[in-house]
């Protein structure tokens, strides 16, 4: 046997012994009735349509919970599920509960809308006590409808793990890429993709130096600089791919929407819609006082040209649970402290926003 054949056989044996797929895995396919009925939908109804099994939100919180007492070995490291949603820019969570009573959540960001995507989450990292998994649940944030194909918990083989890393490397975090402070760094396993890029840079430089004869200082410098350019170009491919996907997401999610709908979607908190509603009710030139918790600045911004004032006759409350209204005494309190008297309710905007009017100038 020549050396090539021996190497080939050794590689095949290595591949086989590394395992091409462990036997233990838990799979729920929701096109089968039994699996779909085993899971419990909280505040949602399930439907079977031509597009597959779907869950429709009916209230808060919107969860889909696995059967209890699963007793899944903590050695199974990945949860994988395939779903599609009509929205993007939103986060969902996989909640994992172990037998020792611990639970934690792992975040995932939705991919392009109306397309099935496979999401893989390492559930071993959060399992600090190594206890068997008792149950898992999916929570869908503010998504109204999701189509779910399957959920799988498994220990990937080497080639599956490579596939997982490859998928993670190319995944684009649409929802979390909204900070001015940094860009999410793609990972390969637990490491920044910059680390293998530097290794590649040095390897390329070495190859160039070896190939370029004669070996001079200039050829070494040229090789190093060209390797940097190559590494930079590979970096650009990965990172500009993310912008390309961002463009696709924006085009498909917002392309057909009106100007107001785009702002409302980009806002994502309801503050814009609330402010638009207020502007229709509050007379021109009048002022308003806002209680909106952490969204106060945003409502104030969207509300312009209606300005805020400490002595405003109108009081707008938006998503602020600390504010309470006593209709009998006509008092408005915040953290049990009276902030305005002689208050009357003007109108409500959905369940989160209310506009009051005070007949007392300069309250209180």
């Amino acid at each position, binding site marked *: 046997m020549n050396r090539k054949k021996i190497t080939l056989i050794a590689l095949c044996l290595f591949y086989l012994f590394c395992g091409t797929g462990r036997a233990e895995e838990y799979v729920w396919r929701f096109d089968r009735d039994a699996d779909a009925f085993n899971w419990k939908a909280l505040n949602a109804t399930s439907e079977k349509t031509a597009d597959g099994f779907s869950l429709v939100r009916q209230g808060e919180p919107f969860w889909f919970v696995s059967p209890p007492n699963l007793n899944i070995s903590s050695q199974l490291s990945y949860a994988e599920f395939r779903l599609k949603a009509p929205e993007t820019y939103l986060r969902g969570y996989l909640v994992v509960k172990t037998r020792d009573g611990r639970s934690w959540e792992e975040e995932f960001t939705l991919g392009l809308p109306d397309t099935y995507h496979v999401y893989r989450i390492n559930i071993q990292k959060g399992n600090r006590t190594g206890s068997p998994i008792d149950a898992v649940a999916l929570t869908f944030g503010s998504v109204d409808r999701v189509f779910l194909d399957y959920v799988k918990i498994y220990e990937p083989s080497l080639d599956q793990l490579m596939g997982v890393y490859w998928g993670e490397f190319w995944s684009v975090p649409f929802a979390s890429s909204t900070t001015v402070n940094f860009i999410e760094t793609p990972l390969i396993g637990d490491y920044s993709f910059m680390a293998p890029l530097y290794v590649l*840079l040095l390897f390329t430089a070495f190859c160039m130096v070896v190939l370029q004869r004669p070996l001079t200082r200039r050829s070494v410098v040229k090789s190093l600089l060209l390797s940097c350019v190559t590494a930079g170009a590979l*970096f650009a491919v990965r*990172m500009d791919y993310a912008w390309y996907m961002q463009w696709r997401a924006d085009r498909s999610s917002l392309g057909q929407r009106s100007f107001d709908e785009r702002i409302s979607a*980009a806002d994502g908190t309801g503050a814009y819609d609330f402010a638009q509603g207020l502007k229709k009710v509050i007379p021109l030139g009048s002022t308003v006082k806002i209680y909106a918790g952490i969204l106060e600045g945003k409502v104030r*911004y969207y509300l*312009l040209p209606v*300005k805020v004032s400490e002595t405003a006759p109108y009081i707008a409350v938006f998503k602020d649970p600390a504010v309470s209204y006593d209709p009998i005494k006509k008092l408005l309190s915040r953290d049990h402290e009276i902030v305005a008297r002689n208050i009357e309710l003007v109108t409500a905007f959905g369940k989160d926003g209310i506009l009051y009017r005070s007949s007392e100038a300069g309250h209180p």
Partner: protein
Amino acid sequence: MTIMMLAYALAVPAVTGFLFVTWCTRSDPEQSFFERLFLGFGIGTGMTTFEMFLLGLLRIPLNLVAISIVQIATAILLGYLLHRTGTPWRRIFGKEAGGPGGSPATGTRLHRVVVIILTAWILAKVLFVLYEGFFLPENTSDSWEHWSSGAKFFFYEKSLALDPANEHFFGSGYLKVQRYPLNVPLMQVWVSLCIGEANEVYMKAWNALFFIGMVGLMFFAVRRKTTLMTALLAAFFLSTVPLLTYHALIAYADLPLSAYALCTMVCFWSTIDALKSGRAGHARGQLVLMGTCAALCVWTKMEGLFFAAAFSASLALYYLVRKISFKQMMAFLAPLVLVSVSWYVFLLSIQVPVSYGEVKLLGATITKGIHFQALPVIAEQILFSANFNVIFSFLFLLIIVGYRKILQSDLAYLYAALLSIMAIFLVLYLGTDMYRWVMNLTAVNRNILTFIPMMYYVAALTAGGLLERETVTDRGWYR
């Protein structure tokens, strides 16, 4: 109508700035039409907002007519001055492109393919930025909170609200930090005045245009000194900086600051070039531009002061070594002093504190110890985060392999300015409470972003010199 007025809002500052740059560089046939246009866009925008600030101080209502009159009068004056100095039309609008090295048509097949791919990629990136810039509304809370909220308020107020009886005196309650310079908010006010509404999308379109202007300026400024391939690579890599791209889609002030810093660097190199070749008149014009760009750094963000200090120090070094005239130094300092003094005297006059309340003086906090814990975080961000591409490793490598040539050439002055800025930030991070903003990653990457385009420019000039030594000895950075 909105589109026409938007075009007007963007074109007026661009034309004024272009004429100003052309007037300052009228004796230099080297700078191409597009280089002057990209340089002029930023300068013209800054001039517009500073004029708006002055109008606001004079209690003249901020409206389209008043600002347009000042802008158009400035443009007419500059046009007249160009005409009076006998500058031919061909000089003003001629493209005058070109630099060392042959055209792509004469290169190898691989060379031509690479040129086509790079050009297509840059154009795709420009189209992406334009699409997102003119389509997506403002969606980053940091951005609207710090820069757009005050702009919207000034737009509806039609003034800087300097009446002491006003409950929202100088944007109080809307300008989150009143000591932040007004360049970015007033850019947004100007667009809003032109289109007649505070439009959440168009108000922030400036950053997309600054991004494109920066990439364009990088290409044309580098092309003047090195080959087409080096210039294209510089523009390409700058356009692929992820954090810069993200900032092109929002309205934060770090991107305009980085654009003005790049403009200052380009003008500094043109100044050195002019002085080296004995064109004193042209050098004075470039120094005026350099001073204007440094002034606009100050007018854009508080960190702009660091850039002004670093460039002033580097120019002072050049002044001491090469003995440039005092008049030339004044050409740099005059715009810088005019803008900086006006802004900070104004802040003091309305009793707005100009420093962060919680940050102690450097000497006082340094006695508490140096915050060395910030160093690994900074190293991780510049080497292993996906914010900046591999520019830090690349520039480090260039300095290692080319340090002798750099020290022997005038590029050392550009490096002095760049390293001074890095040193200022590092001293602040290690010596003051600002280290917290490194540890929680709130400011460190944005601060680095402000000098990233300068790094690409210096790297392109250095790499161009190292790789193309044979072809550029007559025009490049070798002496």
